[in-house]
């Protein structure tokens, strides 16, 4: 008997990946809190990294938007 592969939608696959990432992040955060000298230094470092990653993501999004070819007038409302 051959078992057919289950249908997984792209959305479900993305959610699974997000859940896996969340679990890894939780483990990382707990390790950082346990190993650091105090919660203050953890929060300070997290804030700095968050700001850096936020800036990185923002710059990346801006570049992507600039590189995207402009939509042609005919394609507008075609769908």
């Amino acid at each position, binding site marked *: 008997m051959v078992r057919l592969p289950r249908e997984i939608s*792209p959305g479900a696959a993305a959610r699974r990946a997000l859940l896996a990432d969340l679990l890894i992040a939780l483990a990382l955060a707990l390790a950082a809190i346990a190993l650091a000298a105090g919660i*203050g230094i953890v*929060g300070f470092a997290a804030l700095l990294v968050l700001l850096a990653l936020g800036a990185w993501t923002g710059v990346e999004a801006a570049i992507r938007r600039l590189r995207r070819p402009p939509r042609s007038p005919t394609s507008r409302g075609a769908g």
Partner: protein
Amino acid sequence: MGPTRRARQAGRLPPWRRARRVLLLACCICLVPAGVSWVNALSAPRNVGLGVTSVEWLRQNGGNSLVSEIENEYYTLTAPSKGGAPLRSLPQVGIAAAGGSGQGAVEAGYRPPNVVPLIHPALPGEGVWKKAAANAGPRPPVLLTSFRSDPEYPQFVAGVAWIDSSRTTLAYVPGLAEPPPPLTHRGPAEVPQGMRRRVVATFNGGFPLETSNAGLIYRGKVVEAMVNGIATVVEYRDGRVDIVKWESGAGAPANVWFAKQNLPPIIDEGRLNPNLSDGPAWGETVNNAVRVWRSGIGVDAHGNLLYAAANYQTVESLAKVLRRAGAVRALELDINEDWTSFISYRHPGAGSPSNLLPEMYRPPERYLTPDERDFFAVYLRPGERW
């Protein structure tokens, strides 16, 4: 390619982007307990601004070395340059000349000799002791003076206070957060209402226990184990006050009422500590050679207290100020503009409080409201008239 695989690939992010997402999530998770702790610190009673409270919170929660490093860099970058235009006058210190050359008449009790100015020609009133209080009588309990503290930096002015130990007692007052809990008999963290009639001066305490690596005895009980070799402000049960290099072990001797330790002595038996350079013995704070607001306390040869404070001081220059004012034993107290305060009260009932130096940034009412840090209060002895 099957539909499942196609779907998996469609939802897959490049590895570096997933790593970034993991890091982002981990940071968000870390910020939750840190944020709760920070908000708790901000919501506690306090009389300093948001910035100072946040820095103190960071210090107390594992960030002390980081804060000290940042402070070192900041103060090094903003260090003053040598020289500059000479001063034409000194800031107003005290309210009236104490009278005479300072070598008071025998019946009036001991008076300290005026401080010999370091820079010549001397400015009007430089080094001359003045009464801290109006109507203080022939034996003022507190005298104040100021003088230029360093010939290489002729614009720096040190403020010095002399406290007559024969007329006053010294009290150690715990703050709201320092020493940290648990502490029995913490008190109101301000000059108690019942003692305001007799208060003549208040001044800042030493480093927080966490950063001084030193001990504390309060009301005869050990709060933090005492450390031999550390400079200590001691009040004995008979009311005598002294500054000693502690050699009595970790416990509380029976005759000690309070003992507050802070770093090694900066002056011992009239000599500057030969090791005023940096090292672990000097606490987890800015380097000793960094020029910053510093304060210290000493005793003269007659057992009277001397307090000194000034901006842009190194540990060595502070020690020299205290020695020039007559200190034979001395220790460094708190540093930084946020914590350095000497306040004299010009009228009974804690009336007309006044900072020793006009540049002192904390308000003169600082210790008449609950304060974060511990401090010292100087009271007239019972029976002594204002």
